[in-house]
C-alpha cells in the first residue's frame, strides 16, 4: 500500500482533519472566511498561473476534494512573497500553508512530477547540497534539459546571447561544467544533512502513523 492510499484510508472522508494533522500550519485551514484577499494579493496570479487560488484550496479541503488538492500544481507556484500573510484579515499563515500542502503532496508521492517549480526545487537542493555551493551553470543546464534533449538544445539556443554576455562579463565560468567549486568542509555538510534527514524522517513517520 502506498503512503498515499494509507493516509486516505486512515482519514476516510475527513480530508480537513488529515490536513490539520499532517500539514504544517494545516490547523489554520478551518479559519479561512473566504474573503479572497489572498487570491487578489497574489503577484503570481496575474496570468492565471494558479489553477486554484489559496482560498479556493481551503474550500476544496473542507469539501473533501483530496485528490484534486494534492495533485494540483497551484501551491507550487507560491514564491513566498508573503503578501497574502500580510493582508489576510484572519491572520492565516497562507504562505506556510501552501508550502505545507506542497510538502505533504510530495511526501505522499502524488505531487505533479514535472511541475517546473517543484522540479527546480529538487534540482536546486541536489545541486547545493552536493558540494555545499550552488553550481549555477549546472543548475540552469539541468532546468533547460528538463523536458528532454531536443527541448534542452532549443532552450539553450534561445538563451545563447545571455550566456555569452555573462561569460564576457565574467559572471559565468564554462569550466564549472567540470566539477566546479565546493565548500571547505564538504563532508561536514553531508553528515549534518544526513542527521537532519534522519530527524525529519522519524518525526514525519511518527506523525503519519498517528
Amino acid at each position, binding site marked *: 500500500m502506498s503512503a498515499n492510499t494509507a493516509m486516505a484510508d486512515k482519514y476516510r472522508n475527513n480530508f480537513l482533519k488529515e490536513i490539520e494533522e499532517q500539514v504544517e500550519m494545516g490547523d489554520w485551514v*478551518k479559519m479561512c472566511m473566504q474573503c479572497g484577499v489572498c487570491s487578489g494579493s497574489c503577484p503570481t496570479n496575474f496570468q492565471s498561473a494558479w489553477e486554484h487560488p489559496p482560498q479556493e484550496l481551503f474550500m476544496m479541503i473542507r469539501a473533501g476534494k483530496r485528490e484534486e488538492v494534492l495533485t494540483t500544481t497551484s501551491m507550487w507556484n507560491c514564491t513566498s512573497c508573503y503578501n497574502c500573510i500580510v493582508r489576510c484579515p484572519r491572520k492565516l499563515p497562507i504562505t506556510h500553508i501552501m508550502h505545507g500542502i506542497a510538502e505533504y503532496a510530495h511526501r505522499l508521492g502524488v505531487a505533479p512530477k514535472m511541475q517546473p517549480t517543484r522540479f527546480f526545487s529538487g534540482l536546486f537542493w541536489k545541486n547545493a547540497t552536493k558540494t555545499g555551493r550552488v553550481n549555477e551553470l549546472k543548475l540552469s543546464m539541468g532546468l533547460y534539459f528538463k523536458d528532454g534533449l531536443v527541448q534542452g538544445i532549443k532552450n539553450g539556443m534561445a538563451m545563447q546571447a545571455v550566456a555569452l554576455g555573462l561569460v564576457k562579463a565574467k559572471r559565468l565560468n564554462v569550466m564549472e561544467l567540470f566539477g566546479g567549486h565546493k565548500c571547505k568542509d564538504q563532508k561536514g555538510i553531508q553528515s549534518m544533512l544526513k542527521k537532519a534527514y534522519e530527524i525529519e524522517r522519524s518525526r514525519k513517520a511518527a506523525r503519519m502513523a498517528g
Partner: protein
Amino acid sequence: MADIKVAAYICKGCGLGERLDTDTLVKIAQKDGKVQLAKSHDFLCNADGVAMIKNDIANEGVTHIMIGACSRRAKTEAFFFPENAVARANLREGVIWIRPDTEEARETTQDMAEDYVRMGCAEVKAMTAPGGNPNTGSSKTLLVVGGGVTGMTAAIEASKTGYQVVLVEKTGTLGGWAGKLYKRMPVHEPYKTPVDPGVADLVSQVMGDSNIKLYLNATVAKTDGAPGRFVVEIATESGATHTEDIGAIVQASGFTLYDMNKLPELGGGKSTNVVDQAGLEALALEAAGKDGVIRRPSDGQPVKSVVFVQCAGQCDPTGKHLAYCSGFCCNTSIKQAMYFKDANPSIDTTVIYTDLRTPGNGEDFYRSAQEKGVVFTKGKVAEVVPSGATSTVKFHDLILDDTNAAMLDVDLVVLATGQVPNSGVDIFAAPAAEGEVEVKPISILNLNYRQGSDVPQLKQGFTDSHFICFPYETRRTGIYTAGPVRRPMDMVQAREDATGAALKAIQALENAELGRAAHPRSGDLSFPKVRLEGCTQCKRCTVECPFGAIDEDEKRFPLFNESRCRRCGTCMGACPVRVISFENYSVNTVGAQIKAVDIPDEFSEKPRILILACENDAYPALDMAGMNRNEYSAFVRIIPIRCLGSVNTIWVTDALNAGYDGVMMMGCKSGDEYQCHFVKGSELGRVRMSKIDDTLKTLNLESERVRDLEVAITDIKRVPEMINKYAEELVAIGPSPFKGF
C-alpha cells in the same frame, strides 16, 4: 387685529452694517412695512440689544417683532420672546453671506435685503403668538404592548425613570421568543460561547416592579384618544375588559418566524428532521433536560451530522419569499452549531451560507465557531431531500462553482428562516381581488382612528418610521414601535430599541401635557385651527394627514386631535377652501410675504424667483451655503415652509400672478426611501404640484416657471448651483408677462 403693535429691528452686526444701507432698511420697514416702531442696533443679539427689545415690549406695548438680522435658525436663545409673534428677516445667511462684496453687486444685494425686510414685516403682521394646544391630557402611564424581551425592557426602563407602566402580553407567559431559547449569543468578552438568555432575570424584574401593572393572556381591544389622554380597553382571557388611562404607547409586538412550510424544496414540512431555528432551540432545551444529547426527532437517535441552511426563504429576489435579510440568523446558526460542537466535537456541523452576516461582536463569535471546527461552506442550497431518517442537502458550491455539491446522510437540517413582523393590519393594503380569500391579520392596537386600526407600515410589513432621524417614531404620535416589528433585529438591538422607544414615549407624554408638539417641531406651541363654517367636508385633510391626527365628528366635519398633530401643515396645504391655519403659519403669513416683494418691471433685467424651502432640510442647506460663502443669485426670495406638504397651490398662483418669473420648490426626497421629516408631506406636496400645469396653462405660462426640486441637508454646494442654473434658464425663457399688473 386692532391692538397689535409691530416693531422692526435691524441689526448692524456681523458685517450687516458695512454691507447694507441699514438706515434705508429702517425706512423701508416704516414706509413699506408700515411698522409703528423701527430701530437699528449695532449688535442686536447681545445683552443690550435684547434688553432694548424687551424694554419696548414692556414699555412701548410692542406685541409683534420683526428682527432683521441672521437666519431664524441662529440666535434662537437670544431672540426668544414666547409671548410675542416673531418673524425673522434673514439678512446675514440669506443676503450678505451669499453675495459677493463688490461695488457692482451692492445694488442687487441691497434690493434683496429690502425685500426680506418687507417680507418679514408683512409676515409678522399676519401672525399671532402661539398659545399652545388647550386640548391636553395628563396621563403619565405608559402602555407597553408585548411581553417579550423588547416589551419587558421598555417597561423596566420606563419604570426606572419613574413612570407607571401597563404591560399587556397576549400569551400566558412573559419572555416571547427569547423565552424559548436554550442559550443566546454572548454579549460580553470574549464572545466565544453561548450564554444563558437572561430572560428569567427580566421576568423577575418585571414581576417585582410595583410600577408595572401586568396583564397576561390579554389583548388591546380598543385604543382611543391622543397622547396624554389615550383610553385603552384591555380584553383578558376571561372576557373581562379593563380600561386604562394611558399617556403614550410602546408597541413591541415582535415577530413570527417565516413559515418553513412555505419552503417544501428545502424539506420544510416534509420531514421531522428538518426544523427551523425555533425547532432546534426546542430540541436543545429537551436535550438539556435529559442527557444533553440532541436527538433526531424522527427516531430519537443522536445527531451525528447537522447542516444549517442560511437565508432559507430570505434575501429572495424572486418575490416569492422574504426579500430582506433578517440580520440575526447567521449568529443564531453559529450559536446552534456550537450546541453540537461544545457537547461533542466529533459531530459534523456545516453552515451553508451565501453571505455570512455577523453584526455586533458576531465576528469574534464566528471565529470561535471556526476554531471549534464548525465548517462554513459558501453555497446556495437548492434542495433538501429527506429519505428515511436522513436527508441529502444539494447545493451549489459558490467558491468551487460546483452545481452538484451535496451533503449526504445528514441527520438534521436547520432552516434559518427570517423574521416576519407582527405589525397588525396593513391599513393601506389594497382590498383583495375578487375570488381571492382575504386573510385579515389581527389588529394589535385596535386604534379608533379614522385612518385605520394600526400604525402604518412602510415595506414588507415593517412599521413606518423616519429611519435615519427618528427611528422609533411611527406615523401615530405618541405611539412608538420597538424591536423586530420595526425592522429585523437581534436581542441586543431590540433591548437598545426598547430603551430608546420608552424614553421617546415619555418625552411625548410630557410634551402632550404641555400642549406642545412632538418631533420634529418638538416644543412647538402652535396647532392647526379650522374655521368650520367655511369647511366643505371634502375630507382631504382627514385622509391626507400623515399622522392620522384628524378624525371626523358625527356631522362629518374634521375633528382635530391636536395632541396627535406634528404641526407639519399638510392639512393646510390640502385644504381647497383654506380654512386651516396655524397662529404663526398660515396661508396668509406666506401669502403676505409673497405679495410684499417689490417686483421690478420687465425692462429692469431684474427677475424675481420665489423659493419655497422646506425648513427641515432645504433651508438649513441654504443657510449653510451662506456660511460657506457659496454665492447664489440675488434675484431669489426665499420663504421657509414647514413642509412641502403645507404648500397651498394658491401661493404659487399668487406669485405667478404678481409677476414672479419662476417658483422653485425645495423639499425632501419622497417615496419608499423618503427623507421627509413628516413622512408623507413632501410626497403629497409633489402630487398636488404635479397638477400645477393646468394652472400654468390657464395663465398662459410656460411649465418651466414652476420647478419642484429634491434637496437634502447636505446639498450645501448643489443648492446654489441649482438656483443659478434655474436663474439662467429663466433668462432664456424671458420675463413673466404678468409684471406691472
